[in-house]
């Protein structure tokens, strides 16, 4: 195995938003780095600015201060090179499943015939053959999110930014899609940053878990997750799983908050 190399570094990022009583510091001097083919989960108290980090990396927001370095080069953002997936599936209701999957390729100006062939192949691979012409409205939540995942993967993004992608789904569907995600990430050699408030999901999927402190967000601790499981379901049965789970709960002060 090649030595782990840093793919993305976020350094000293600051971001504040104007609020009622003056500016609200959401990110204050936040730094972390992501390795090549890493699977990092970011967990932290709700409202600590996890989505803001993603918006900055994706180029939807400009940081007040700080640098982003990608494979040794300083960049403004990874706009156009990330696959952003959110809690809402954000499928375009007027586009069919095929049309939705094609969105990114169209935007990039890929030859339509080539794009369509690729899209059909991806849909087949993810068990959605036969649904090409269905509208999102006709699909279940799990299927919609699967379409959103395909739309993200087909762009061949450098990094997947997943912002609580499964939190709106029922547990069974979530477990299933976690498996689909993990397989896809392995097949396509992707780097993933996953924002979640589901500790269980973070441990089951990740190689590393970054715990953020409350607002303004700072990296509190980074945990290496050393579970070698074939699927998120078997990961949950690993002996080390509950230890990680308890440690992370403690990091998030879940125990103390209750008493």
């Amino acid at each position: 195995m090649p030595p782990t190399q840093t793919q993305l570094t976020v350094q000293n990022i600051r971001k504040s938003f104007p609020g009622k009583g003056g500016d609200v510091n959401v990110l204050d001097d936040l730094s972390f780095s992501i390795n090549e083919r890493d699977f990092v989960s970011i967990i932290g108290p709700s409202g600590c600015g996890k989505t803001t980090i993603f918006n900055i990396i994706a180029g939807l927001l400009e940081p007040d201060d700080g640098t982003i370095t990608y494979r040794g080069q300083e960049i403004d953002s990874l706009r156009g090179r990330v696959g952003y997936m959110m809690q809402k599936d954000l499928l375009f209701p007027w586009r069919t499943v095929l049309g939705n999957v094609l969105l990114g390729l169209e935007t990039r100006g890929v030859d339509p015939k080539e794009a369509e062939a690729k899209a059909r192949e991806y849909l087949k691979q993810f068990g959605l053959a036969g649904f090409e012409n269905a509208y999102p409205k006709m699909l279940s939540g799990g299927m919609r999110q699967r379409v959103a995942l395909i739309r993200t993967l087909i762009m061949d993004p450098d990094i997947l930014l997943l912002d609580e992608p499964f939190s709106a789904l029922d547990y069974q569907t979530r477990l299933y899609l976690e498996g689909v995600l993990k397989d896809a990430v392995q097949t396509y050699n992707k780097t993933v940053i996953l924002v979640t408030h589901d500790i269980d999901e973070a441990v089951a999927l990740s190689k590393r878990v970054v715990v953020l402190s409350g607002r303004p967000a700072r990296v509190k601790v980074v945990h290496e997750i050393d579970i070698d499981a074939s699927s998120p379901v078997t990961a949950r049965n690993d002996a080390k799983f509950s230890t990680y789970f308890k440690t992370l709960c403690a990091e998030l002060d879940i125990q103390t908050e209750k008493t």
Partner: protein
Amino acid sequence: MTMTIQSSAPVRTAPKLRRKPKRSAFDTVLGRAVLQVLAIAVFFALWEIGVRAGYVSAFLMGSPSGIFAMFYKLILSGELLSDSWYTLFEAILGFIIGTIFGSLLGLALWYSVFVAKLVEPFIVAINSVPKIALAPIVVLWFGTGLISKVALAVSLTALVALIAAYQAAKDADVDLQSLMISMGADKHQIFFKAVVPSTLPSIIATFRINIGFGLVGAVVGEFISSQRGLGHMIFTASSLYDLDSVWVGLFTLMIMGFILYYVIDIIERTSLPWKQATTSHQVQV
């Protein structure tokens, strides 16, 4: 406990138990049509009886028999048809130009928040003028022919479309736009792929109102000054106390509006198939 997840096996949800509501014998398409036709027949019969018995003045109100006779006569002479076509043409032309022009302008305002904010009070001000009040000037400017009626219809429809399109563009889902930005899309791509399609339902919804406004513009324009059209026919007939002809004109306008309404209805239903996609055949993972 080990758990296996069946991946793509379809999960069937139990069919919903539907309680059949009690329906009366007339609550079918045919039954309702019978009742509706019956209501019209009764209305005309009472009117006719009222006129014959001397309770209703035929001079001021006209009479159904007179109306039908006049209708027959005007159809045979071809006058009614040519007047109808003329008015219909003005209304539809005004509707199309006004709706397209207004929608495009409203959508274009999405491009610049600055310009949009700048012109917003002007749009509100112009919209608050009853456009019908413009009719005399419009006739002065555009003459007594076709163009003045179309212009009037445009003035009525364009602002409705503009405001609806602008509002819908403003309300277009920001998350979809963010997603496109993260994909590296530029402003034009976001406009054409995310904003415009999401405004279509609102724009199409204005068709229903605007087709009526198109007719209003055409008829009012004809009232002011014209040689043809249903508005002209109604106006001249009423100044001659020819109430039967007035009613023929009014009923023809009614039928015209009625047909246009359903044409728009069909356009609305067929142009947005994704809205029609029913959730009843929902498919599960």
